[in-house]
């Protein structure tokens, strides 16, 4: 543990710091922008008649009153003016003053107020990223257009989830995915990684080198079992910053053909009931943290079902539904709930599935990247990306194709 910073000490009688989130009221048009920002896109409203881009979000084109649609646009910009806000009546920003913001002329046309990265000033070129603020709403953040971005910028940290030095729970670390996630977190400098080991594995049996890395603490954990979950969390013994739910129960089979009710029940127990148990137990712990996050690994089969994995897909669909409700619940606490979609994974559960498949290490890297970018929704690999694109463009057609 020599190179890792010591864990935060906590005085049980110290006053608990109140966590506020950035102002939350938005128009419906702005929510549409946020929904796209959640996917990591940079979009603006563009008029279908005159092709001009507009911002802030409107309900009609201000140039010709034509219809506006959301389109991906270039995110380059030039900074016009800046200020450092030193007083605010808002409780969230009061906790984070001083705050730098400015105005940019976007290459796409409109001018916009933006959060300013510390390395930028007036007349500089910038790349404007559409990020989600602590209230979960889209905001424009001007970043240096080239070179490495200094992620220690205190304002930028508010839009991301730092991993270094943090305490992370991986709900199922005994799988190939789980092991890869533990390794990636370790490499990213996580302070303590609590690695859930699904019974009947015993801690004393754990010879895997990843589980013996510095800062990795295996604990028995089955999120389906409330007692197991309570015991595992009681062993955290300090703040918990991030939860990564890698638990899943992948089995083949249809609905009326080759269906196994026992397997189906287990799949729902893990993906849906287990998710709820884990979320319920961890939510209050995460809510007290400055950069709390819950990452859920979810199958892209959740979007539209899957004939060959009907029970698993249904359980994952239930999980997606619960995830969306949970995300909304956590908005008021500032805890980010991130979903990482994947198709078949290169692991024992997908042995009969042809490629392309996602390597566990790639999935793990994507999870760490989603945290570092504060990206609410990610798709890893070609299968998941293709599934999301088709589902977004025509969900009924996709459901039909997917289940042919």
């Amino acid at each position, binding site marked *: 543990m020599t190179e890792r910073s010591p864990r935060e000490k906590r005085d049980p009688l110290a006053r608990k710091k109140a966590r506020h989130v*950035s*102002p939350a*009221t*938005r*128009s419906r*048009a*702005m929510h549409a922008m946020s929904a796209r920002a959640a996917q990591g896109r940079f979009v603006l409203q563009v008029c279908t008649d005159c092709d001009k881009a507009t*911002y*802030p*979000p409107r309900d009609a084109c*201000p140039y010709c009153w034509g219809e506006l649609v959301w389109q991906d646009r270039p995110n380059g910009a030039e900074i*016009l*003016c*800046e*200020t*450092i*806000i*030193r*007083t*605010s*009546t*808002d409780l*969230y*920003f009061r906790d984070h003053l001083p*705050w*730098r*913001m*400015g*105005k940019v*002329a976007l290459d796409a046309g409109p*001018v*916009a*107020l*933006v*959060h300013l990265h510390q390395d930028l000033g*007036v007349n500089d070129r910038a790349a404007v990223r559409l990020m989600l*603020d602590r*209230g979960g*709403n889209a*905001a424009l953040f001007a970043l240096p257009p080239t070179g490495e971005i200094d992620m220690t910028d205190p304002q930028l940290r508010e839009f991301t989830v730092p991993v270094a030095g943090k305490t992370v729970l991986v709900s199922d670390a005994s799988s190939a995915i789980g092991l890869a996630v533990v390794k990636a977190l370790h490499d990213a400098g996580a302070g303590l990684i609590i690695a859930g080991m699904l019974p009947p594995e015993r801690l004393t049996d754990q010879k895997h080198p990843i589980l013996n890395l510095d800062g990795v603490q295996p604990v028995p954990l089955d999120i389906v079992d409330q007692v197991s979950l309570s015991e595992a969390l009681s062993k955290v013994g300090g703040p918990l910053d991030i939860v990564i739910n890698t638990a899943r129960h992948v089995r083949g089979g249809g609905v009326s053909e080759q269906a196994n009710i026992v397997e189906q029940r287990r799949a729902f127990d893990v993906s849906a009931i287990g998710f709820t148990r884990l979320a319920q137990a961890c939510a209050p712990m995460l809510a007290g943290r400055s950069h709390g996050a819950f990452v859920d690994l979810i199958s892209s089969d959740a979007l539209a079902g899957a004939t060959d994995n009907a029970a698993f897909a249904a359980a994952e669909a239930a999980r997606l539904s619960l995830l969306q409700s949970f995300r909304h619940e956590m908005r008021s606490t500032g805890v980010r709930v991130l979903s990482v979609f994947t198709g078949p994974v290169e692991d024992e559960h997908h042995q009969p599935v042809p490629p392309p498949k996602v390597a566990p290490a790639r999935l793990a890297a994507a999870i760490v990247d989603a945290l570092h970018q504060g990206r609410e929704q990610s798709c890893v690999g070609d299968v998941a990306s293709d599934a999301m694109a088709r589902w977004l463009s025509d969900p009924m057609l996709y459901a039909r194709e997917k289940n042919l």
Partner: protein
Amino acid sequence: MNRTPAPYDGVAVCAPVTAPYVRFSPESAHWWAGKLLRQLAEDTGFGPADIDGFCFASFSAGPDTAVGLTQHLGLTPRWLDHLPTGGASGVMALRRAARAVQCGDAEIVVCLAADTNQIDSFRHSLANFSRFSQDAVYPYGFGGPNATFALITDAYMRAFGVTREDFGKLCVAQRANAMSNPLALQRRPLSLEAYLAARPIADPVHLFDCVMPCAGAEAFIVTTPEIAKARGLAAASVLATIERHNAFPEDPVQLRGGWAMDIDQFWASAGISPADVDSLQVYDDYPVIVAMQLADLGFCKQDEVADFIRRTSFDIDGDLPLNTNGGQLSAGQAGAAGGFQNMTEGLRQILRQPLGDQVPNAEISVVSGFGLVNYDRGICTGAAALRAMK
């Protein structure tokens, strides 16, 4: 391009009244409106039955509008208007009331702005100010108007070489003017050194660039010269007015306001030039907006504004008496009443009823309004030229 507006024949503006401002008030906007009407009645003799036109501006009367105010305050007008235009509402009330009186739709129109300022109400009114603010301004640090005008000030200083000392001169002159106004909330002398040494609020905006939100009310009456005379009320005529909203939307940063679109027509209609103005009452939420109006109203060229500020005295007995009651920067900003105090003060100076010191030989006042930062700039602008009736 535009049809020339008809002159304001048969219109008299009179009876400026001000309810003394307080920093915080537990009362409602309705209470402030009622208190001011009572004061107006004592000054003029007009009672509820006399008033047949009512124009109201307020940010804090919700859920009521001018409609609720009629029943609340026992008015039965045959002409009613509600102005949501804040800092531009005084000039706009004058424009609307003047045409109503001129055309006979009403004879005695009370134009009134009232706002309260309860503890913490400023925060709430900020949070719900406009849709664009909710979506695209307040999530960026929630600096309120200070941040918006900091960006404008930053760009303005870079564009025209205006310095903090120049803005300081305006603020110091207005404070000097406020010292004779017993109703001004801030009357302690302000030195340029103290101005420059003030703490930053949202750079480059510092403490003395900001108005103090407060509670208060302002009103005036628009009627016919005959009625004013019969009641023994000193009155002014309207030489010209202009109004513009969302001007120059293509400007990336607001370096000019709507006045610049119509100012030639303004002076031509008024039949006077800037040199004829005895008192200038411009909207002053921040000194950058004062500087902007000096240029846009035609007192100097835009790129010469720094030089104009340096060589002009803005004191009550100076070259260009400016915001002679101290303006909002010293007297306080009572919500929408902040868009009326330029009207009442401009009237007072030419009607020889000043709250404080009198501008010597004042005959002509120009009043200018600016209101409503919907997103990144003030949307509503207007100006009026008034001359004392003999």
